[in-house]
């Protein structure tokens, strides 16, 4: 590079650079290009180092930085003008000076014809340079969308591009109707956050009025854009703009066929606009029935029921207007019966009956016959009657409506046997199996039963040391070391990592290895999950067992069935076989809490037969429902009495061990209420659950009081931990849900919440008030996985008679009026539940009836869908509404008429 050019770059003198480039002979350009590239690189580095060290004076720094930026612009200009096309695409990744086109015009590289296309394909912000090149006649006009998207920029500040550059009206302005864009770069996105006077809409209209843009062409361009089926949000701008154009009746009539085509659009707003326009055209100049019926046919199945209902109504009008079109109209109406909305089906059924007997054909009857099963129960009888009257066969006999009879809750014995619906857990039998299971746990979101299975496997098989032990556990140990990071905050995974490292440690060094683990570090923290000490104590016990070389002694607390349940006879056997004098307290307390309800009497008989002494045997006897003298260890007896009667206070244990807190000797009880708070015109709802007896804030609880500990638990942020918590006391799920419910997010996606809804699906879960409340909340959750999981739980609970519609309805009644739940969501999810089985359908009907209470004048606004669902469910069961309060309520609503057939 010659000195003059270097000086021009150093002086950031772009015109001088262009002048010097013009004087540069083509053979020298290559050399100049490499020097310019080197300058660019150097300047970029200097700018980066300046940015890292702004220095003391901001203004000086800013001046230095701006100077470097200007020099870089000059260097870029020279590099591009002397470089190749591939170099251009690399350099164009950053903003280029506006003089780039002039520089290229000076050097005229052989790729200049494609320069505009290349520039915009790299970055849409180069659109102005590309335009400059095109207008100079140097480059072909780019076909890339970015050429237009670059223009479609932010118009809130500065002069609008249309006002600044009238040449845009020749091509670019029209091309804006052909490019959809995305993200922020679209007309819809730009205008959404721009004031009216600065918007693109206003700019187009202003220049149309000024005569710069042809009105007729604008109308056509808008219709062309709508025919392209852009995404609904972006297509919305064009339909709104079309409205802004205030198209006259004559203009509309002239474009009739185009509007007819738009009825087939996949965008509801476009169909709606075309529909309204065609109606106005038809009002002045009737459109041929054949054309309209063919165009409206697909609209009757539109996803948006409002448009579909309007289309059906219009078809009915066409049928009345032109009798010759009745057959086609009837076929379209029969097709509309496939629509999922009852309102559309009702309008279609009304239309079919209006068509009269003249339209009846075998084909039509077949069509309606095919759709019969999908027709809403409240209309099915009409369709059957219509078909029967066609064939002359008598319709179905009308039977008197009956009351919906709720299925009684299953007796306790049946409920208890549900333990055996849970799958049995097969203990790990070999070390290889243990390594496999352990390795999988480290990679997955720990299944709590699998975690316990591995704990048990370590207890029984961990101390076996074969010759190749180190090689066998080597990969597991390596993985554990890799995952063990100080900032890892996942209690179950932390525990597993600590245990894996302890297992793989040298003989006798297991306990010491745990002390150096991340789990140990977290144990020292003040704010830790309430049950972390439980995990810690268990790992310490296991490590001690490894160090002692004890084999064949499994955990008492290892679940025998999924969900954390232990079959009572299995626990009796384990305790009898236990080799140590006294079992580990944490392990035994946990084992007691995990006792399943089924099979307790038989297990108790077995225990009483062997007549062993000791506090543990007494506690187990007590937990199984037998008689025993309450011993001195408070945690043990608290666990025993919670296992014995999970929801009832135990006076005997209370007397010996008072003030243990909720779910110690005293069973916790809960009550809830919804609080509302208004802020900036919005109402925020929050759920509050209070527990009795209360746990003093800052109270310290013995980690072996596992049931009480739950009341200290913070909302579990990790799914694996939340799942594991549910298995600590399966029969005490009320405290689990009480702790979770206030934190469940119903209106946004909180991914870890799913763990709590999963717990609702446990086949042995006894639905208490808190579990039912959580279920009712889940049924109204916005996130599909959460509402879907709740729907599954409701179906399973109804079908297995663990929950009745009445019980759910009572909770729904209390929630309904609070505004906490969106009733439309309830209706949608309950419809899914009802569709799963006849039992679920009946229970949902009862639940809805039970929740309809209060003053109809103050009914929630979105209650209509719930009432419609009730009508359909009553029709499906051919039942009447017998609930007096619900009858009174619905008669006061606008939907009273729909309920009349179900009142008698």
């Amino acid at each position, binding site marked *: 590079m010659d000195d003059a050019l270097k000086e021009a770059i150093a002086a950031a003198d772009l015109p001088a650079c262009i002048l010097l480039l013009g004087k540069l002979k083509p053979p020298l350009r290559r050399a100049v290009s490499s020097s310019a590239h080197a300058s660019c690189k150097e300047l970029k580095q200097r700018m980066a180092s300046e940015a890292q060290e702004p220095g003391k004076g901001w203004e000086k720094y800013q001046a230095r930085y701006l100077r470097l930026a200007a020099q870089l612009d000059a260097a870029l200009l020279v590099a591009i003008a002397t470089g190749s096309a591939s170099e251009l695409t690399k350099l164009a990744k950053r903003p280029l000076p506006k003089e780039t086109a002039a520089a290229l015009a000076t050097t005229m590289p052989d790729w200049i014809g494609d320069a505009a296309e290349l520039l915009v394909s790299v970055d849409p912000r180069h659109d102005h340079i590309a335009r400059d090149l095109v207008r100079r006649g140097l480059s072909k006009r780019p076909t890339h969308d970015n050429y237009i998207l670059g223009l479609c920029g932010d118009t809130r500040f500065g002069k609008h591009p249309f006002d600044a550059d009238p040449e845009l009206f020749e091509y670019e302005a029209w091309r804006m109707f*052909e490019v*959809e864009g*995305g993200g922020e770069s679209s007309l819809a996105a730009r205008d959404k956050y721009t004031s009216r006077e600065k918007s693109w809409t206003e700019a187009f209209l202003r220049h149309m009025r000024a005569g710069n843009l042809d009105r007729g062409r604008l109308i056509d361009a808008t219709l*062309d854009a709508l*025919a*392209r*089926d852009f995404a609904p949000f972006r297509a919305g701008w064009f339909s709104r703009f079309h409205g802004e154009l205030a198209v006259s009746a004559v203009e509309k009539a002239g474009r009739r066929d185009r509007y007819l*085509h738009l009825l*087939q*659009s*996949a965008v509801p707003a476009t169909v709606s606009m075309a529909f309204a326009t065609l109606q106005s055209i038809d009002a002045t100049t009737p459109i041929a029935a054949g054309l309209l019926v*063919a165009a409206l046919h*697909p609209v009757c*199945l539109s*996803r948006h029921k409002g448009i579909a209902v309007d289309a059906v109504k219009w078809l009915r009008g066409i049928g009345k207007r032109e009798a010759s079109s009745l057959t086609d109209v009837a076929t379209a109406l029969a097709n509309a019966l*496939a629509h*999922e909305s009852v309102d559309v089906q009702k309008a279609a059924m009304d239309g079919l009956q209006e068509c009269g007997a003249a339209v009846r054909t075998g084909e039509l009857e077949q069509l309606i016959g*095919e*759709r019969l*099963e*999908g027709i809403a129960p409240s209309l099915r009888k009409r369709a059957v009657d219509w078909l029967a009257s066609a064939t002359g066969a008598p319709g179905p006999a009308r039977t008197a409506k009956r009351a919906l009879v709720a299925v009684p809750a299953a007796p306790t014995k049946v409920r208890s046997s549900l333990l055996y619906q849970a799958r049995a857990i097969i203990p790990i039998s070999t070390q*290889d199996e243990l*390594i*496999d299971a352990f*390795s*999988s746990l*480290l*990679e*997955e*979101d720990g299944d709590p039963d699998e975690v316990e299975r591995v704990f048990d496997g370590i207890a029984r098989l961990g101390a076996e040391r074969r010759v190749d032990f180190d*090689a*066998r556990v*080597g*990969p*597991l140990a*390596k*993985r554990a070391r890799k*995952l063990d*990071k100080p*900032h*890892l*905050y*996942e209690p179950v*995974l932390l525990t597993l990592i600590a245990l894996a490292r302890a297992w793989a440690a040298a003989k006798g060094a297991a306990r010491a290895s745990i002390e150096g683990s991340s789990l140990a570090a977290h144990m020292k923290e003040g704010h830790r999950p309430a049950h972390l000490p439980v995990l810690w104590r268990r790992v310490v016990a296991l490590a001690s067992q490894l160090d002692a070389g004890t084999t064949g002694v499994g955990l008492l607390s290892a679940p025998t069935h999924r969900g954390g349940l232990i079959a009572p006879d299995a626990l009796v056997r384990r305790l009898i076989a236990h080799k140590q004098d006294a079992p580990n307290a944490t392990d035994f307390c946990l084992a007691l809490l995990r006792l399943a309800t089924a099979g307790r009497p038989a297990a108790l008989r077995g225990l009483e037969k062997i007549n062993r002494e000791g506090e543990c045997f007494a506690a187990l006897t007590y937990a199984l429902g037998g008689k025993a003298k309450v011993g001195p260890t408070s945690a043990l007896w608290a666990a025993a009495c919670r296992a014995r009667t999970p929801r009832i206070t135990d006076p005997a244990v209370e007397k010996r061990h008072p003030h243990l807190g909720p779910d110690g000797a005293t069973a916790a009880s809960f009550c809830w209420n919804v609080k509302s708070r208004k802020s900036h015109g919005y109402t925020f709802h929050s759920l509050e659950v209070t527990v009795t007896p209360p746990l003093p804030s800052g109270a310290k609880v013995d980690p072996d009081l596992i049931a009480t500990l739950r009341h200290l638990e913070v909302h579990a942020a*990790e799914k694996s931990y939340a799942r594991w918590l549910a298995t600590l006391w399966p029969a005490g799920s009320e405290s689990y849900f009480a702790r979770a419910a206030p934190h469940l997010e119903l209106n946004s*996606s909180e*991914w870890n919440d*799913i763990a709590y809804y*999963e717990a609702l*699906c446990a086949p042995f879960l006894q639905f208490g008030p808190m579990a039912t409340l959580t279920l009712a909340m889940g049924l109204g959750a*916005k996130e*599909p*996985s959460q509402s*879907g*999981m709740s729907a*599954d739980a409701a179906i*399973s609970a109804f079908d297995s008679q663990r929950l009745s519609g009445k019980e759910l309805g009572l909770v729904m009644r209390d929630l309904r009026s609070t505004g906490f739940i969106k009733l439309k969501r309830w209706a949608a999810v309950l419809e*899914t539940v009802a*569709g*799963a089985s006849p039992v679920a359908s009946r229970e949902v009907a009862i639940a809805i009836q039970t929740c309809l209470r209060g003053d109809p004048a103050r009914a929630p606004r979105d209650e209509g869908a719930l009432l419609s669902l009730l009508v359909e469910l009553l029709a499906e069961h051919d039942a009447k509404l017998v609930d007096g309060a619900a009858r009174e309520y619905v008669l006061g609503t606008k939907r009273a008429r729909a309920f009349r057939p179900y009142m008698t």
Partner: protein
Amino acid sequence: MSERRRTDGAARREQREEVAKGGRGANSPFMPATVEHTYRYEGHSEIVTTRGLRALELSTSGPHSEHPFFFEGALTKPRLTALALRSLSKVVGSRFYAPPAMLQKILALADPVVTCSRGMLRFEGFSSCASTYVRVDLTPEAYKGEPRGLGTTNVDFNAEMRAALAVVRDGDQLHLSVGRSAVVLKSKNREVVERKVPLPTRWLKGFVEVQSFLSRMQPFCKVSGTEAMRFLRGLPRAKTSKHRYYVVSRGKSLRTSLTETSGVATTGLERLRALEDLAPLAHDLCVYGTEDGQASAWELDFGALRITVALSAEVWRGFSGEGQALTALARRETGPRLLAALRAQLAWDSALDLEGLARNVRAEEHEVADALRVLGTHGLVGYDQHSATFFHREMPFELEKLELLSPRLSAARALIAKDAVQSISGEEAMFCVRSRDVEHRVKLSANGEPLRCTCPWYAKHKTMRGPCKHMLAAQIHWESTRRDG
């Protein structure tokens, strides 16, 4: 969880560094991230009207001849075909999952491909994120006309053409041509449209490997078009990529569940939205699924034509790297001969007769099926789950640029080359595979099928994504030991 993700990211970084050190040669177990592909069309595809007759003229590009001309004829179901092609185009232009660091600018990387075979016209496409495969099958009932040639080619699907397809109605007469005759080309004097796109390797591999999944699928249930429409419309509008859903049959309809594992498993149900507009016109919807829940296929049947959308197990995972044919690939002793013999038998049949092929190449039917799966991974055959047959088509991409063998298989061969595999004496079919500073223990079944390994990859995926590199190495070792007697 976040920590685990971070460490996975670190592993990927290590892998990248290894690529940088080891280069990208044929011996490297790693492949280039993208392969440059050039589409060269003789103008844009468009709908043209000549003397009142509308015709959909699809421009073609490659592979063997510059602009192949395969078909010309009239469509008997113009609106349906137009809607199906629009849906296909919608999937091809979609990115159902964008990795956080990736910009949306790589949308719509590749055009669909069309195969003109004996008795079937098939359009195939693949979403940009490589998680959704779509195919439109036109049976002879859907068109009137004879193929002008047999083969597979890329076709240009541009925005203008898509817009024109939107307004096609059943009453319209619509002709279709795949490519243009030399005479027409000459008369129209069109300018060649050239577009270079970097096709990601995982996209290319996914496109060809999806056939392995389709061939393992079993029909799960069939519902009417009306029920299909209601099911598709009832799907959540929000993204459902975080949780696994099971589609279960409920009488004559379908519903989704998160717990009933008996159904067809999938995530990212929003990918099925491509079928929503078509469902009201369909006779029925048939759902297929693999036993292990790794993929599902959704086929709308209109009689004369069908559209199939195949979904990978997770939106972010795609079909690539699944290693479904790795075991077959690993067994090389009979492979090359059989593959060559089979390849010679392919003659653009829309349904390959397994029995006949087995007879012709003197092999067992299961061997032929395995070999066809391998040919599938080479882009030479596709699978039609409707007729449960393979069909011949040759992907018009320069697949030879890829190291076609899986990186896992290459890594396994590298382990063999380093003599890192040893049988463990005293334990049947048990192997010790040394990998860096750790020894993995691999267990094979008596007939050499992979059973277990102690590596983290196996711990995470088991054999659902095919065997790990250690298992493959052990299999190769086992095969060679057996062969050597």
